[in-house]
């Protein structure tokens, strides 16, 4: 039973969506919008699952004292800081001192709690227990007596928190852009390593890539023809191959979707 119901659900919803496509009536549209909304909401619940997994893996690493475990503190502090910023807002114009102290105290408290879990000898346990308790109490006290900031548990104000924005602009964005730009290096090294005329296929790959890369190079002889040839490559064979791949992929997706709806393909439910 427990195994059959999910497949029945897949079948029902799958068939419904297929029929929905052919029914323009408002009722069908309305059901369709409902379903899509549901999926988004379920996805957010799943995010909690993910955060829990990330938290658990990091804590586990610290606990086992694996190599590089100390970096996991950084993951946890980053996680916590961003959540803290997402739900609080300083009320003053600039970054309040109390707010800053509160953030530091809370981070310290997390680190201490993690240490508490990681150490085994009772003396150290007692010490980290004390530290975490003290930092927690101090954080609560600062939170109560400092009025330069406030919890914003009831509006998305937190997302406008200047620190939330700042972390996005100066921590997330630079790393994102830099990771992305690593591609410039990797594309060079991949080309160097892999573009060898070993056989017919590799040679075709190599020649096409070289031709297109030289399309605007004025220093090579016959530059004008190279530009023309590479334009042709991008417009003609490219179109043909893309279309062949797209038709193949389209059929693959259609067939797999059909197999899923009919319950022929069940691997995704954990039954190889």
């Amino acid at each position, binding site marked *: 039973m427990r195994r059959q119901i999910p497949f029945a*659900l897949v079948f029902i919803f799958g068939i419904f969506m*297929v029929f929905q496509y052919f029914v323009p009536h408002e009722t069908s549209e309305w059901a369709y919008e409902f379903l899509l909304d549901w999926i988004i909401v379920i996805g957010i619940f799943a995010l909690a699952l993910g*955060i829990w997994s990330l938290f658990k893996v990091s804590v586990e690493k610290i606990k086992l004292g694996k190599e590089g475990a100390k970096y996991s503190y*950084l993951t946890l502090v980053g996680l916590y800081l961003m959540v803290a910023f997402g739900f609080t807002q300083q009320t003053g114009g600039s970054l309040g001192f109390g707010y800053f102290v509160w953030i530091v105290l809370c981070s310290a408290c997390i680190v201490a709690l993690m240490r508490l879990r990681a150490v085994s000898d009772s003396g150290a346990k007692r010490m980290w227990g004390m530290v975490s308790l003290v930092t927690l109490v101090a954080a609560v006290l600062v939170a109560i007596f400092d009025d330069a900031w406030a919890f914003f548990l009831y509006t998305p104000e937190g997302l406008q928190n200047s620190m939330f924005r700042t972390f996005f602009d*100066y921590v*997330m964005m630079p790393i994102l852009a830099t990771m992305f730009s690593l591609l410039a290096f990797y594309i060079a090294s991949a080309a160097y390593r892999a573009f060898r005329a070993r056989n017919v296929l590799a040679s075709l790959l190599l020649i096409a890539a070289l031709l297109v890369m030289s399309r605007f190079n004025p220093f090579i002889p016959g530059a004008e023809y190279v530009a023309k040839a590479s334009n042709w490559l991008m417009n003609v064979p490219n179109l043909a191959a893309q279309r062949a791949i*797209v038709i193949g992929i*389209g059929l693959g997706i259609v067939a797999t979707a059909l197999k899923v709806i009919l319950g022929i393909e069940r691997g995704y439910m954990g039954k190889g």
Partner: protein
Amino acid sequence: MNRSTYIVAAVVVLLFALSWVLHTLAMSGEADGVTRAFMVTMAAFLTLAIYSFLYKDNAFYKLAEHLYVGVSAAYWMCQGFWSTIVGNLIPRLSEGASNFFQQPYQASSWNVAYWIPVILGIMLLMRLTKNYGWMSRWPLALIVGTTAGLNFVRYLRSDFIVQVSSTFVPLLGDKELHPWLGFGAFVSNLDLSATGQLAALATNWVVFLGVICGIVYFFFSKEHTGVFGRASRVGIWILMITFGASFGYTVMGRISLLVGRITFLFRDWLGLIS
């Protein structure tokens, strides 16, 4: 930790401090100058930390990586919470809760249906328990079933029917510019220039045969021998040419990304160029 590690760490800390101080001085008089100077330095430090990975894996990269993982996970969680749970779900579930979150309550007799995804979401979380893990398959079934149905018809339309019908091109005459008026007209109008009739037809032929050979390559249940094998061979050649060409074409965009980071480091951080 050996001595050289400490030296490197000390140098980095020193440079960080120096950059912070210099930027603070440069921004003196501006609001939050100290914080902003710190953050610009931080951004530059993180940029260089990621680039250091090109040399080899090292402590700075690990630092940036772990920080980034934590911060980004929390970022998406906050976004998801505020935009979906508070922005979308709460205003439909209860008036009291929407008042608490200062969201306008959206009254509708169908609002009760929004409890279903909440229940399904909680069922998904049941995976964390030992005995009720099976429950998490229900919401999964809903998601997979719905999107499978969605994909089934939509891909059949966009990747199959539309693509097939766009292979119907004239190979003897061009519909708009050089229509097929019979063989005599074809010969007398023969235009050999680069944009002319013959070039257009050659293009159509290459595309048509390329598509056919490419599809033949993707046949799985027939042995690739004889004529069939040769067509499949041509198919994989065309695929390889295309992959090479699009690899070469992408290089330009990737270099632009690098230029973006160089601009940040040399202009925004070091101020070497204007």
